[in-house]
């Protein structure tokens, strides 16, 4: 459905993506993981047209969208939830959702989708007349998610949707992504919480300093020791906190405390 071929992109003199190939099939959830500054967000921004690729080709359902403007890309149903929430701070929650349904293809179903959003995030309903800028971090994240739902996505691109969410809300978002999949929406997911992402996805890409270094099914990625070490290797807080393993030495490249 979505195919990136040899795409390179960057900001001015900085090249953030080098010859990236990504494929997402109709109806699947694909995950893109990588450490800080690897170029995940840039990849999404390139697809949605905010960043112009310097080389390569982007295809959506067989049509080249490389040179389209973001507005035109939205028209084709590619909806991008940007990193860091980016709600419209001086519009109310309700108005934010209205903007989500701005494109003509979404306008018709505006009211029923809004109901659906409020069902999924009752918190937003409680806050519907509040200015989005005064919401808590997590509430803004919910709003950003809901706003994307309003746009009737065909391909939904989520940039770190779990950022700043309480564990229980992370589950909620996971459920929402599942819901999208069941209704046939394709999802491209960027997450720091790699475990969550790979759990949800069928296909995964690992990106490092702008290059795709691994592309595989998510099960195989989850088992890949390299992935495990650099992205999943969470320490098991249950044991650590409970003091079961007090002498465990943590591998860390942090310098020892000298100053404080």
């Amino acid at each position: 459905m979505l195919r990136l071929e040899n795409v390179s992109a960057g900001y001015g003199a900085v090249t953030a993506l080098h010859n990236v190939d990504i494929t997402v099939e109709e109806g699947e959830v694909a995950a893109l993981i990588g450490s800080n500054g690897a170029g995940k967000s840039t990849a999404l921004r390139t697809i949605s047209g905010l960043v112009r690729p310097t080389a390569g080709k982007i295809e959506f359902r067989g049509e080249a969208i490389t040179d389209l403007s973001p507005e035109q890309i939205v028209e084709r149903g590619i909806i991008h939830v940007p990193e860091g929430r980016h709600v419209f701070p001086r519009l109310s929650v309700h108005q934010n959702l209205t903007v989500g349904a701005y494109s003509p293809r979404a306008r018709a179903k505006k009211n029923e989708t809004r109901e659906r959003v409020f069902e999924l995030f009752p918190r937003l309903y409680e806050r519907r007349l509040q200015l989005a800028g005064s919401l808590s971090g997590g509430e803004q994240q919910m709003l950003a998610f809901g706003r994307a739902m309003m746009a009737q996505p065909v391909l939904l691109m989520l940039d770190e949707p779990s950022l700043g969410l309480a564990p229980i809300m992370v589950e909620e978002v996971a459920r929402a992504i599942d819901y999208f999949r069941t209704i046939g929406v394709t999802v491209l997911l960027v997450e720091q919480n790699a475990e969550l992402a790979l759990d949800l996805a069928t296909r995964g890409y690992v990106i490092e300093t702008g290059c795709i270094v691994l592309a595989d099914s998510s099960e195989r990625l989850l088992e890949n020791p390299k992935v495990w070490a650099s992205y999943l290797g969470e320490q098991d807080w249950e044991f650590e906190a409970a003091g079961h393993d007090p002498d465990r030495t943590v591998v860390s490249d942090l310098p020892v405390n000298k100053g404080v």
Partner: protein
Amino acid sequence: MTLDQFVQTTLGGLAIGCIYSLIALGISMIIRSTDILHFAQGEMLMIGSMMGLSAYWLHNLPFVLVLLAGTIGGGLISVGIEFFIYRKLRLLRVSLINIMIATLGVSIVLQNVARLVWGSEPLRYPTLFASKGLVFAGFAVSPQLVWIVVLSGLIMGGLIIFFRYTTLGIAMQAAAQDPDTARLMGVNVDRTTTYTFALAGMMAGAAGVLLGSLFFASFNMGFMTGIKAFVAATLGGLGSVAGAMIGGLVFGIIETFSGMLISTAYKDAVGMVVLIVILLFMPSGLFARDGRSV
């Protein structure tokens, strides 16, 4: 102060206030949709006034058409300036203060172009209204004032509804607050910006015809009016439609009444003192629209 004087002063203040409101509205809308402090908004009023007058000279048009000509003239110039100047500057990614300085430059240029085109002397506006006063509850009221108040009221009411309830109005604000994200929602930011400038310019143009017919048209009629409208917009809360409206009215009334009651020498100072005092208690104006900062 007699009752008659009071009524006259109030009405005069209201009419001037409406003019300020119309300019302030444009200023606020532009801030809302582009964050630009548009110091050339007053010049749109002047252009509207001049265009209306020129239309009259050409064809001896009736008032409504003169008003229309001024409105369209203001809108066109406003859109043109946005397209050829501010848009280019935004593409260069210069900061807002640079654009603000550019608006001052635009103001200087427009004034001087107008001076070259229409001359440096004030121009008499035709008597477009029946000059007989209307009588309301025993008070003679000049028809210009009524026109101004009614027309401005309609425009402002329409705008409030537009921004609060229509998808386009909401999208225009979204485009202002976060253009990149708005584009991700399918909003064509360039187009909403054009709409904003068109609307703002048209309102100023209409105000120009109204002001011209009340007084006269001259190449420098816009600057001071623009500055005062700016103060009015700040008073109401920059970026707020209702604020600009109320701010303009309040400022107009303060100005006439302080001239009447306090001192004509310090008339302008009174408005400023009121502004500062109000800002002390409400730092973002009467109708602030703050988000949280921490």
